[in-house]
């Protein structure tokens, strides 16, 4: 196998409780708690960032794959949600058992396109196979993202 290793580096600095700044090259990303439960929290949590990263990966990979296949599309959007096995373990509740791991991720991947459904599904299959985050997460999490083509 050809050596195609490339490493990515992110530096993350704590700015306070539930406040971190991540630096990726010259880009900056601010994040809050590991898994926030307050709807009014000022920053997205690490769990939300993971979902966002998965969504961005799928959108980008689908767009690139569709472009190479000359499949036209007007808009792409992903809606993702996840649950933890036992969030109370993460919160340090004494006596709770189980794991704070992400137990399941599900969602919908919307494709607005005039192309045929079979063609869109073929691109979606390639997308999932080529997505770094999808292929990583599907090995450890119950991952179910439904394709929803719309004209």
């Amino acid at each position, binding site marked *: 196998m050809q050596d195609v290793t490339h490493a990515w580096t992110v530096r993350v600095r704590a700015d306070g409780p539930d406040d971190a700044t991540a630096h990726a090259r010259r880009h900056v990303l601010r994040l809050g708690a590991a898994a926030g*439960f*307050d709807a009014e929290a000022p920053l997205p949590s690490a769990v939300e960032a993971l979902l966002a990263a998965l969504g961005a990966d799928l959108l980008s990979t689908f767009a690139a794959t569709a472009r190479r296949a000359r499949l036209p599309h007007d808009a792409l959007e992903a809606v993702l949600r996840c649950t933890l096995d036992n969030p109370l373990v993460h*919160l340090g*509740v*004494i006596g709770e058992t189980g794991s704070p791991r992400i137990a399941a991720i599900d969602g919908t991947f919307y494709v607005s396109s005039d192309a045929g459904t079979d063609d869109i599904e073929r691109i979606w299959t390639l997308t999932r196979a080529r997505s770094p985050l999808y292929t990583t997460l599907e090995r450890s999490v119950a991952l179910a993202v439904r394709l929803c083509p719309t004209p």
Partner: protein
Amino acid sequence: MTAPRPILVGAVAYDPKVVTIWEIIKAYFEDHGTPMDFVFYSNYGLLVTALLDGDLDIAWNSPLAWVDAVRRTGGTCRAIAMRDTDRDRVSHIVVRADGDVRTLADVRGRTIAVGAADSPQATLIPLGLLADNGLVPDEDVAVLRHDVLVGKHGDHVGGERDALDALLAGDADACAMLDLNHAGWTADGTLDPATTRILATTPPFDHCVFTVRADFNAAAERDWLATLFTMDYANPDHREMMDLEGLKAWLPGRTSGFGPLTEAVGRFGFFEGRRVGAPAEPTSLRDAAR
């Protein structure tokens, strides 16, 4: 000069939202110069043990945890504060309006659906009402228990809700629920007042209470209570926190409202490990996962 040691308050958490509420309360106390912190436990048995072992200063006890603390301290623990909504609660026994259960005596030979084995409001006190009226649970009346999150003393309404579902599905002839849940489920349409009715109501009882050991530092207690009682529902900055915790005013703790539960606990041998009724079979994957 070192900062004063935070007063450590323990509570049971059944949902992450509980932690959010306590984060807000903690910030309120710190803003008022009374540092406090909190520790969460998965069940009230652990909470009471932590209080009695000195790991905590104050425990936010369920009524059953209060009765347990009284039992385990020989009556020396103290109730220092409670919500206005903790006082004078009642539970209802609800039946189908079109059924033939017209009086409490009609429940004889039938089935009552209740909440978790350790729920004061949905199991112990309502069954005590039956016993007061000559209906011995498991002898004169079959008891169908819904053990959701046992150890949390019915804080999670799942068992109480399952008991209502059992009534509506025809698996039981009556069910028990807290007045607040009856009102809430009537308001949101879960419970149809046209097809159900209240058959009987328990005597009033008190619910949660902040509990301390007899040796809790008097100055710390005074400062903590002064800050707690400063919360004012008329103050918009306090209202969200009080709404989340379900109260309009904090009141001094009182011990006069635990009679019905104390009596039921003794009658049914709860702390001797006896349990009233048979647990219901899970009816769904959701139930089975609990």
